[in-house]
């Protein structure tokens, strides 16, 4: 068991995971400051509601899932203030990678998260399954459907 709730432990988690979690949150949220808020809330939650992790894998999985949940909350709250996401993609005329990033953000969480973890962080389907608590087959399906949706959004083949 890895106890949390102490300042030292949480600061260690910040050092180890905050960059990865911030990029993950940025793949779900278009505003960097919102992404920062989501990640900081995750770490502060460990302070007020300490939990014992089974091992380092469980620790990382919990941080990833909780970050995705917080990002999802922030998206939902912001949804009514924003343009429909497809429209936002069409309006933008940015660099190819930025366009793809915006399209990934526009995907529902179930697809966007696995796409980012696979194509940016380089996790295998099996590893993503462990991190998100999903069967590997489900991750594979989400990856495939996510790519299909991206194609539809971008109206071109993804190589």
């Amino acid at each position: 068991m890895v106890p949390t709730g102490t300042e030292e432990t949480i600061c260690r988690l910040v050092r180890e995971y905050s960059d990865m979690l911030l990029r993950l949150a940025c793949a779900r949220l278009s505003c960097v400051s919102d992404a920062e808020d989501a990640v900081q809330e995750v770490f502060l939650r460990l302070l007020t509601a300490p939990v014992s992790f089974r091992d380092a894998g469980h620790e990382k999985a919990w941080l990833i899932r909780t970050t995705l949940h917080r990002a999802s909350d922030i998206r939902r709250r912001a949804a009514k203030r924003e343009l429909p996401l497809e429209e936002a993609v069409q309006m933008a005329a940015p660099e190819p990678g930025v366009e793809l990033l915006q399209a990934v953000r526009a995907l529902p969480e179930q697809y966007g998260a696995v796409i980012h973890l696979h194509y940016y962080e380089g996790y295998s389907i099996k590893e993503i399954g462990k991190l998100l608590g999903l069967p590997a087959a489900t991750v594979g399906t989400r990856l495939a459907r996510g790519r299909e949706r991206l194609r539809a959004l971008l109206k071109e083949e993804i190589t």
Partner: protein
Amino acid sequence: MNWNDYKKAVDALPLSDDFQERTQELVRRQAQKEKERIAMKKKGFVRVMAAAAAVALFTVSAYAASRWLSPSQVAQMHGDPTLARAFESGDAIKVNQSVETENFCVTLAGLVSGENLSRWNSQADKAHTYAVMILESLDQSPLERDNFPLDEYTFTPLVAGYTPWSVNNWTLHAGVSNMEQDGIIYYLLDVQSIEMFADHTVYLAFYQGTVPSRDTFTMAEDGTISFAEDFEGPHALFTLPLDQSKADPAAVERFIEESGFDKEWFTTVQPDEPDDGMEYDVQETETEDGIHIEILPKSGEETSGKELN
């Protein structure tokens, strides 16, 4: 277009170099606040607030209810006609119970649960609960959304038998919208459906503070949740009249599993801090300000007084 472009775009995001440092500093500051609060509790002065403890729940009169917007009107004001219709449906529960606490009258107007009840819900396939709470001042001074510190107050569901820090707004992925009309503030809470817990007592708590903690709530051995005896600030606890047949223990199991936490964290109140193996004497002295509690090592254990913090 390829995934290398995606990587480049992510790497080019304007992330601040000092995010790690700022986050660590935030954690340290917050940890210090927690330590100070615990120290105050351990050796400090506990004020007896007998009068403030006498908060009573009452059903509001038809006159009072008529002054307020109905849950359906609140949903309309939020731009959600779908939810407005849901609040008028037979599935909606009208509560209209109030608690007067310090300078506030807090009212739980009603709630409704189900799938596809809101146009703003991006998880249409997942059931949600929506509740409307009303906040007004008792001294007739209008509450204004722009001036009122909304962030300092929390409305959150809690469930008997589950620790308040495990089942609440934060773990149920809640969203709260606030609206103001005629000096009255309306809260519209949108949270993952709490009907799955309907075979337990389900509460809606209002209090001054943020994430539920051991300083705010206690859970008795039978699972009953109440505010901590020395909790200060406006607070109220409503019991929700949910239909027990809507309980879904399998969904609760999934919720716990998906949380990533151990089940024990949900159901057991862990000790406040590790036992240091020492025994202490507790001395209580009545003062004008209340009761002064002093905790000292038992005679013979240590020669000098040790402060607990």
